[in-house]
């Protein structure tokens, strides 16, 4: 009894394992539900009806790092918040990705001062940077799609 009988009339698709896994990872990427500052409001707008990020398999935002694959750093990262963020990042299971949303998270933005970490890449690796203060929801969606492209190109050897 081969796969044809099991699948019935559905037919069978063959593809490389690499492709299949990357495809699955791309379209079930659960972001972590937490906001830092103003950019978080635009992230919420991205989730809401008009921009609807669930079109890209992201309707589930998990409030716990243990169940999420994607961390969207939405806002300015202060020196007091930085250790907390790093802890959250460490608690996420592999594979995990980070999108740095907004100028503050990417490079400190307009706040070049004692309180703000000048770019979240000082404390964790970042996959995609989204520019803007705040980035429009469309820009965030574009950032996510860029990340999807990156994930689709990942090689089996580098899988975490």
């Amino acid at each position, binding site marked *: 009894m081969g796969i044809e009988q099991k699948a019935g009339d559905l037919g069978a698709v063959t593809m490389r394992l690499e492709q299949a896994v990357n495809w699955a990872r791309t379209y079930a990427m659960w972001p972590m539900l937490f906001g830092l500052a103003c950019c978080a409001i635009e992230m919420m707008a991205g989730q809401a*009806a008009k921009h609807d990020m669930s079109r890209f398999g992201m309707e589930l935002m998990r409030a716990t790092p243990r169940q999420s694959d994607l961390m969207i750093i939405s806002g300015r990262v202060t020196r007091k918040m930085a250790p907390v963020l790093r802890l959250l990042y460490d608690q996420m299971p592999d594979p995990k990705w980070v999108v740095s949303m907004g100028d503050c998270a990417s490079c400190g933005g307009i706040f070049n*001062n004692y*309180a703000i970490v000048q770019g979240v890449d000082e404390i964790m690796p970042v996959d995609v940077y989204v520019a803007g203060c705040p980035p429009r929801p469309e820009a965030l969606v574009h950032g996510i799609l860029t990340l999807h492209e990156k994930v689709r190109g990942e090689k089996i050897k580098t899988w975490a």
Partner: protein
Amino acid sequence: MLDQSEFAFNELRHLVTDRAIEGETMLLNMGPQHPSTHGVLRLLLELDGEVVVNCFPDIGFLHTGIEKNMEAKSYEKAAVMTDRLDYLNNLGNNLVYCMAIEKLAELDVPIRAQAIRVILTELQRIASHLVWLGTHTLDLAAISMFWYTFRERELILDINEMVSGQRMMTTYFRPGGLWRDVPVEFEDAVRDFIRIFPKRITEYEAMLNENPIFLERTKGIGVIKPEDAIHWGVTGPMLRASGVDFDLRKVDPYMGYEQYEFDVPTHTDSDTYARYLVRVEEMRQSLRIVEQALDKLPYGPVRSNNRKYVPPPRSELGTSMEAVIHHFKLWTDGFEMPEGSVYAAAESPRGVLGVYLESDGSTKPHRVHWRTPSFDNLQMLPVLAKGHLVADLVALVGTTDFVLGDIDR
């Protein structure tokens, strides 16, 4: 050597009751990453079963140093920072800051600019209340409200984008008026909104006002007595829901609010449900103000002609030497403010938002201090939380309607 949890406990010892030290009550951390703390607030809870015995807010996770940073910028450039304070009330922050400068410099604001300021800040108030309504009900397990309120909020953001090119951080109000005049489509867009929105408010009320779960979770939760509210410095809808009729737009009108007819909604139940009613009614009143302001929107300039503070229009640069000089001076150095200090305040969606400016006569502020409503309202939270269940704490956090950017600055 102490391990980490012991160390943390020793640090907190003076805050908690003896029962926690004996292990009778439990210490629990809520936040800074918690979906219902609306940002990065950390609440340390002392729990007896599920009842909150003590609640200590730990703020500062979003301390951005805005006040200090503003001292390093010229007055006009510092206006950009103000948007990022209370990021649901960006234009309101601009307004207060500009009002302070205008008060100290005795700068005039054309009436058209004043009317447009009123229209946009009232729309912003609605947008802010919409975010509050969406997230507050989301925390109380009514997820559908979130989709509806954000749908309407997009309309307001579109208007923002139309006038300034940005959705949230517009810095559209500048000392002496506006950045530039509104486009011709502005009036239609606002009229459309005025036409659509009342029906939508009715929709929200139909979904919530008699919803048994919503009522169960808000009625009688977090009652603030009026005298307590006044003693703790609570302002805004929190105060008005306790029956105190205090609104700066009425008490100390600015930007020509005295010309508009509107009511200040109050309620005497003082609980979370009353605060919900007051805020929803405020949206209606804001709409009334917007409509009146739009009806009698005068024509004319939108920025003062005082060339010591306001850069000349682009068209003058080709023909007038003085214009070039002013332009150069204002964009390289900024304007010099008279020496002195000033306080200006306005009614933000959360309460009284004030700014204190200290000027030493140079082009940069010597000191800027913000009196933010979220900070004062948050003080009330530990008082309210005592004796409530943890689940009610979520409702209380939502009803306080604070913005962490406003608290930590």
